[in-house]
């Protein structure tokens, strides 16, 4: 994977990120210091020293990586769909919630009814089989969506903005459907508590460690697929130039169908791991994640599959680390602020390449 990514580009990307991060920290520290200085210079210095202490910083950095990895699972699919079809899929957030909710339905010991059915079910599967079935059902839902809606719209040459508005409608429909089905309160996939262990300065539960490992394996799997399999290389070809891919004999519609299945499955996996990580998931958690996914995809380089990964990690890390100095309510705003700063320096995103014209 690294061999084919241009090293110089990576280096430049890292440099931009470091400069952006330093700039950000400087602004925040100086800004905060200036504000406090007017009140009491001595107190301000002490506060800054303790707040910026190694423990909190490292812990938040770690949390950021965890969140970034989970975000990446969701946004890789969004990026692949954008790359191959040009669609900004606003209903992708609901795919995240949908996967988690199906898993909840299969795993919970409480009776849950299905929409419009008068009886309730208690499936009560163990978490792992429930999650696997949940991911499969979500992937099937991705297949169905493309078959029934998106491939039809593409065939009739419906323009992108119109398709995007369809996806906004679908997003609203799905989020309300999920709320009607599961209700307004967050649900938990498991009742057991994940005790936190201390590793040096970082405290983390085993479930979270396991989630990280699963996310990393899944993301490496995607990279392997795109780089080392014929189908994956064809997917990148379709991303690059669908008309030429078709003229080369690639069945573009089948590739897009595969991308939808993968994207939906990955989003579901992301939703399930997110539900475990934040110990519960509400009907609109995915919807709220959508903006961060778009930000991550744009930051990394629109349509670039590894861009989504890099962008997600940056968004996750910036959001979590910013809470060391700023109120937690502002963490996503800061992450989106970084997006603007990076785009000012690299309009094509971090891994996006500015191609020659003609």
């Amino acid at each position: 994977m690294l061999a084919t990514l241009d090293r110089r580009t990576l280096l430049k990307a890292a440099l931009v990120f470091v400069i952006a991060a330093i700039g950000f920290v400087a602004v925040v520290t100086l800004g905060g210091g200036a504000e406090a200085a007017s009140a009491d210079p001595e107190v301000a210095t002490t506060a800054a020293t303790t707040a910026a202490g190694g423990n909190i910083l490292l812990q938040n950095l770690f949390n950021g990586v965890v969140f970034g990895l989970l975000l990446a699972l969701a946004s890789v699919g969004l990026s692949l769909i954008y790359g191959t079809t040009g669609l900004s899929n606003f209903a992708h957030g609901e795919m995240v919630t949908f996967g988690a909710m199906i898993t909840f339905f299969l795993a919970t010991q409480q009776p849950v009814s299905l929409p419009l059915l008068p009886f309730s079910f208690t499936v009560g599967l163990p978490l792992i089989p429930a999650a696997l079935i949940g991911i499969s059902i979500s992937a099937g839902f991705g297949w169905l969506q493309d078959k029934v809606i998106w491939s039809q719209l593409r065939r009739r040459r419906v323009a992108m903005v119109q398709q995007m508005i369809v996806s906004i409608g679908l997003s609203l429909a799905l989020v309300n459907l999920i709320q009607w089905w599961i209700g307004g309160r967050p649900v938990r996939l498991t009742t057991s508590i994940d005790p936190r262990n201390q590793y040096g300065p970082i405290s983390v539960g085993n479930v979270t460690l396991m989630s990280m490992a699963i996310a990393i394996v899944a993301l490496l799997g995607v990279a392997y697929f795109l780089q080392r399999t014929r189908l994956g290389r064809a997917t990148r070809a379709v991303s690059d130039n669908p008309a030429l891919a078709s003229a080369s004999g690639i069945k573009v519609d089948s590739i897009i169908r595969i991308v939808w299945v993968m994207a939906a499955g990955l989003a579901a996996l992301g939703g399930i791991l997110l539900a475990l990580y934040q110990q519960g998931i509400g009907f609109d958690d995915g919807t709220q994640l959508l903006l961060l996914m778009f930000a991550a995809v744009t930051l990394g380089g629109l349509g670039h599959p590894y861009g989504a990964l890099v962008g997600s990690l940056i968004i996750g890390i910036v959001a979590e680390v910013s809470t060391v100095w700023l109120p937690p309510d502002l963490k996503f705003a800061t992450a989106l602020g970084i997006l603007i700063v990076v785009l000012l320096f690299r309009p094509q995103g971090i891994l996006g390449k500015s191609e020659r014209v003609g």
Partner: protein
Amino acid sequence: MTDHPVILDADDLIAGYLPGINILNGCSMEVREGELIGIIGPNGAGKSTFLKALFGLVPVRDGSVTLAGEDITNLRADQLVKRGVGFVPQTNNVFPSLTIEENLEMGAYQAHKSFKKQMTKIGDLFPVLVERKNQRAGSLSGGERQMVAMARALMMDPQVLLLDEPSAGLSPVRQDETFVRTRDINRTGVTVIMVEQNARRCLQICDRGYVLDQGTSAYTATGQELLKDPKVIELYLGTLGA
């Protein structure tokens, strides 16, 4: 070549992009196996549209295209590739983020088992592409891209290769190279149909030329005949010998 069997036959094609507006108003062409055909004509005559209609990229409203006697009108691109038709678009003719090797692999997508064998064959025609196979196609110059595009279209061993203005945007030296290469490809037994703005150079290497005017194939003759034809000289070639 007149004794060779007809491989591609376009009969009275009527086609266009927008509903109700026809760009082609009855274009016909008969191509024999192994021929190198040049399509020339003024801007807006429908040269590129004709080529795209042959490859199913512009919907054909009336008329038919047959390949070795089999009807291929309006078939999907992947079906045409399978039947042995290759197409090189004028612009956007490589996958910029893929390496040269990956570009060529995409050309052999339907016959991936013969990819290695085809690579060696391509190495004979375009040695530079095999030397630089790990370079991203997006970093190549226009002329190099044209090479990748042609090589990609040759990976499936097509019977008929359609080239849309292969010399467009290239420097004179690169243009010459492209024409020589096209001739070389044709000599390996591939029937080539090329659309060209550079009518003189095109007719010099062509077995036969078709002159298109206002969406109809006005007339056809051998390349040498067309080069001397007073009407063609006046309309498309400017002065004799220039």
